[in-house]
């Protein structure tokens, strides 16, 4: 005997409704007649065309060219500090140190580029665009903003952050360089950047008690340390700059060493 004979009118209506809803759902999932299928994920609006990037090689010379580009970031920044007379007040006495740091970076850039050429690459004689766009330019904009009473101190804080960034870059590429002799050469320069960082750290937070890591009791943040850890760290570098907001907090910039999209590949030129 057919079970449908036993269905009530209410049950029959319920089954019909569910059937219609199911068919509608399945139809919406399937291909529709007259519509050209696209490989793209369904989206609203027009999808702009894309251009595939060329395959790039991370060679020893690319890593060294990237290091050279950071030297130019430092050279350009120190030049702006000197030419713009940004070290004033208590920090004016640092002018000679800043000139020495700039001269060191000029020597470092020449040394690294000599290695690049020696290993068959093309010397790179300008700053890393991505580092400028992400870190240096925004930092200088914050520092030179009208009404920033801490501009000179902020300059030192930026210089300290850039020296740490350079130190970490050299230490970081040691793990990527394939030629052992180049690793030693990289650290000959990297250790010099670390020394610069110590001199600046002692300006920002002087004295024996500031050599190791300490914490600001009021804010809970780490203070600037000359020797922040037992081993050279490869971590995000934080720097607070510019005019403080109503709560006394400055804008925080987080810096990281150049990654895949910040390397100076062979086809990149100044």
């Amino acid at each position, binding site marked *: 005997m057919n079970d449908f004979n036993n269905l009530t009118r209410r049950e029959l209506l319920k089954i019909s409704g569910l059937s219609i809803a199911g068919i509608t759902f399945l139809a919406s999932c399937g291909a529709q007649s007259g519509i050209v299928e696209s490989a793209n994920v369904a989206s609203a609006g027009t999808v702009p065309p894309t251009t595939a*990037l060329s*395959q*790039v*090689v*991370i*060679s*020893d010379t690319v890593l060294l060219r990237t290091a050279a580009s950071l030297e130019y970031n430092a050279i350009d920044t120190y030049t702006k500090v000197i030419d713009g007379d940004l070290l004033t007040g208590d920090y004016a006495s640092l002018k*000679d*140190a800043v000139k*020495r740091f700039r*001269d*060191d970076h000029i*020597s*470092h850039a*020449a*040394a*690294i580029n*000599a*290695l690049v050429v*020696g290993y068959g690459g093309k010397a790179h004689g300008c700053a890393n665009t991505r580092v400028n766009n992400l870190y240096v330019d925004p930092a200088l904009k914050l520092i030179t903003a009208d009404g920033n009473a801490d501009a000179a101190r902020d300059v030192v804080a930026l210089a300290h952050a850039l020296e740490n960034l350079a*130190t970490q870059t050299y*230490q970081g590429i*040691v*793990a*990527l360089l*394939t*030629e*052992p*002799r*180049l*690793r*030693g*050469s990289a*650290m*000959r*320069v*990297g*250790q*010099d950047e*670390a*020394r*610069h*960082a*110590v*001199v600046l750290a*002692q300006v920002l937070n002087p*004295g*024996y*008690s500031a*050599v*190791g890591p300490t914490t600001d009791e009021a804010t809970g943040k780490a203070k600037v340390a*000359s*020797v922040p*850890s*037992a*081993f*050279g760290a490869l971590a995000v570098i934080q720097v607070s700059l510019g005019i403080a907001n109503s709560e006394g907090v400055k804008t925080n910039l987080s810096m990281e060493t150049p990654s*895949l*999209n910040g390397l100076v590949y062979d086809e990149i030129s100044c």
Partner: protein
Amino acid sequence: MTTKTSAATPTAPTKMPTTADKQLLDFALSAELSVHDLYLKAIDSGMLSADEKTMMEMFSDHHKAYAQSLNGLLGKAASNTRNEALYSTYARQLTSAQAMSRVLQSVENTMVATHTDILSSLEGLDGATLVASIITVEARHAAVFGTLPNSNLGSALNSAASSLAPNAAPAATTTETTVAP
């Protein structure tokens, strides 16, 4: 963007220390043990101020950590004995608080030069990355001695120290002139 490592060197660098690496890393370990003991001698001298003592205790702990890390990397290949020549050369110069700062800065500069020299010969990446992370901090130690108690830019930044590493290859020649190897 697709990336690949250098086409010129299709084989990836080895990770673990080679036999030759182990000899160099063991030398580095023995040197670190010596430097740790030099700091202990300075700390125990009774001639340091409280601030100086605290700082040197931290530096001493760092060198102990380097020795322990190198020991861990070397395993059974670690000799775990200090370099007596290095220790005795500097220990007899620790005659006053002022001399201690000067001598220990010289020791730190020597360690930077030695480790950099060793790094230029290491094939294994584990040893290379460890030594690189030590170099940056030992350079910081040396620079601190140049900034405290009075800041002397030349003392903080310049180093004429020579490497003590045995049979290590020199770093690739550069034209850089402001930093001694």
